[in-house]
């Protein structure tokens, strides 16, 4: 809160200049990051004729939502011309359970690795952490094989399973590190009070876990919603997530390239992650620092 003191005191010249310099730099960076968004937004509400004649950041001469409509429900993806609507909902159907399941498993794992250590638990935890560093590509073939054996190949459930398995390493790490900061005396008190493993988890641990849940949910939603590789490999046709559909939409050529539709589709595909950040972003930062500052 540097402004509070600044309000009461007159700033010296050099301080004023310094302040303006800071603002200038910040605005520059903001523009740099916002520019692609601005271009996308502008392009998505232009007509094709407008796009051909104007430049990238010119304002639309004629504002239209045709491209959005088309992207959502009309554009052709491969041979089907139903827009990305169905694929968007595929992604929802994939992300919601995958995020929920991986987060819950992570919470229980973290609880065990922090408060119910057993012989060898540290080693299992270390092994699990290696999961955070395994590149996607490495697990493609074994996972394809596994899904095939389970009868889940090319299905939405299969995709969910992949994301859960891959995400558990991260969510476990998040929760474990958060729970390490919760005093073990709390668990001991509850044990003496007669509470068991799950009663302590649900009644003592979960109620204080909100910050880390937010972190986990944002992280996992972003990872899973934005994933392309698993989507491309482990799903096909009707079960593909929106990222894959977007790629196909852009690559489906019907003569002329419709940039406005592509942009609209891209914004739609990115919208949920954006929303999650806007709604829960401040909790994200709070959650990440929750261990550092007690409060």
């Amino acid at each position, binding site marked *: 809160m540097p402004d509070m003191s600044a309000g009461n005191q007159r700033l010296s010249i050099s301080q004023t200049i310094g302040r303006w310099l800071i603002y200038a730099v910040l605005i520059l960076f903001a523009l740099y990051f916002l520019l692609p968004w601005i271009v996308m937004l502008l392009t998505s509400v232009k007509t094709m004729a407008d796009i051909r004649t104007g430049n990238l950041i010119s304002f639309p001469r004629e504002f239209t939502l045709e491209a959005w409509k088309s992207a959502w429900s009309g554009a052709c993806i491969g041979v089907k011309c139903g827009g990305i609507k169905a694929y968007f909902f595929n992604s929802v159907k994939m992300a919601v359970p995958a995020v929920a399941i991986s987060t819950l498993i992570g919470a229980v794992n973290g609880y065990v690795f922090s408060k119910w250590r057993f012989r060898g638990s540290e080693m299992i935890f270390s092994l699990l952490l290696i999961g955070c560093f395994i590149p996607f590509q490495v697990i493609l073939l074994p996972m394809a094989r596994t899904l095939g054996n389970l009868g889940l190949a090319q299905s939405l459930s299969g995709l969910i399973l992949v994301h859960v398995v891959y995400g558990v390493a991260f969510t476990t790490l998040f929760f474990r590190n958060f729970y390490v900061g919760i005093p073990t*005396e709390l668990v001991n008190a509850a*044990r*003496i*009070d*007669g*509470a068991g493993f799950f009663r302590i988890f649900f009644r003592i641990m979960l109620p*204080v876990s909100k910050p880390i849940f937010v972190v986990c949910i944002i992280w996992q939603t972003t990872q899973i919603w934005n994933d392309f590789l698993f989507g491309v490999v482990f799903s096909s046709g009707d079960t593909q997530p929106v990222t894959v559909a977007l790629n196909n939409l852009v690559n489906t050529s019907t003569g002329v390239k419709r940039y406005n539709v592509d942009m609209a589709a891209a914004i739609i595909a990115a919208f949920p992650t954006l929303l999650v950040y806007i709604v829960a972003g401040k909790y994200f930062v709070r959650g990440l620092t929750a261990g550092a500052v007690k409060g």
Partner: protein
Amino acid sequence: MAALKIENIYKKFGSVEVLKGISLDVASGEFLVLVGPSGCGKSTLLNLIAGLETVSAGSIMIGDRVVNDISPKDRDIAMVFQSYALYPNMNIRKNLSFGLETRKMPKAQIQEIVQKVSTLLQIQNLLDRKPSELSGGQRQRVAMGRALARNPKVFLFDEPLSNLDAKLRVEMRTEIKRLHQRINTTIVYVTHDQIEAMTMADRIAIMKDGIVQQFDTPENVYDNPSNRFVAGFIGSPSMNFMPAKVGIDAGQAFLIMDTGNGRSHKLTVPREISPLAPWNDREVIFGIRPEQITEDTKRSRETGKNNIINCEVQVVEPTGPDTLVFIQLNGVEVTCRVHPAAARRPGETMALQVDMSKAIFFHPETGERI
């Protein structure tokens, strides 16, 4: 009847042996204080009694059953933690009743107990607040209330007052003691504060490095410490220790004290307490408490068998009721406790009376009592 019997307990964490053969027995209704420096294994011992950790060897009996393999909730104990460990998401009422609900006690009965306990501890008006809305002292009361609500056979306290400020600590000390007199339940109380130990305990177990050094009443621990560690740990200001050469003259043992400026003085050791016969012409560690070196008065001259030394005063610290005077004897700093009016100024020489009837002696190498 023993409420708690601990037999030859060992506890290892990995390869580190934290407790090395601890045996204690606590009578029903007794207030036992475990005291010792930080890291000596007090909390570990308490956790073993509670069942939060398992013993590596030895046995623990609560009442008349061995509880080694019984889980904490079935041991009939309750514990108050140093951090209070109140459930942060529950209000005080819930904090008090959580254990009772877990044990499926009928609602009406729970309500009655919460009422009773909160009245006893004067926290009735806090019942609907969250722990974060309470002061340290109030949290402390709630933590005790939670333990009381369970009405266990043994209470375990792990440094419950160490997070309070000095004044509140003294108040709560008295309050816990009064509480104990009222409910008369067995208490095992851990602290690193020897004053807490002395003021509260029926018996004190002094621990160091995972071993009980002495297990005795506060009076005995103070007057009859079994080794130099106990003697130095209990009492504030601490007991004086100085190396001193023993001489024996006509069956009468004495210590040769260098009082500074090349002068020396013989302190005679009363016959009835003298174990020094085998130590003739050898050095021992001479221990004496500050209050046994006082100003020279007429009365003390009559009773004190002429053990008067003249020493230069180096530092003076008034404490109010007494004044601490620091002198040098045999090359070490020695604290004396004198009447404020009798204290001399630094640099002056003062005649001090040494009450040798309470002198104790330690082996210079092992530190064991001679």
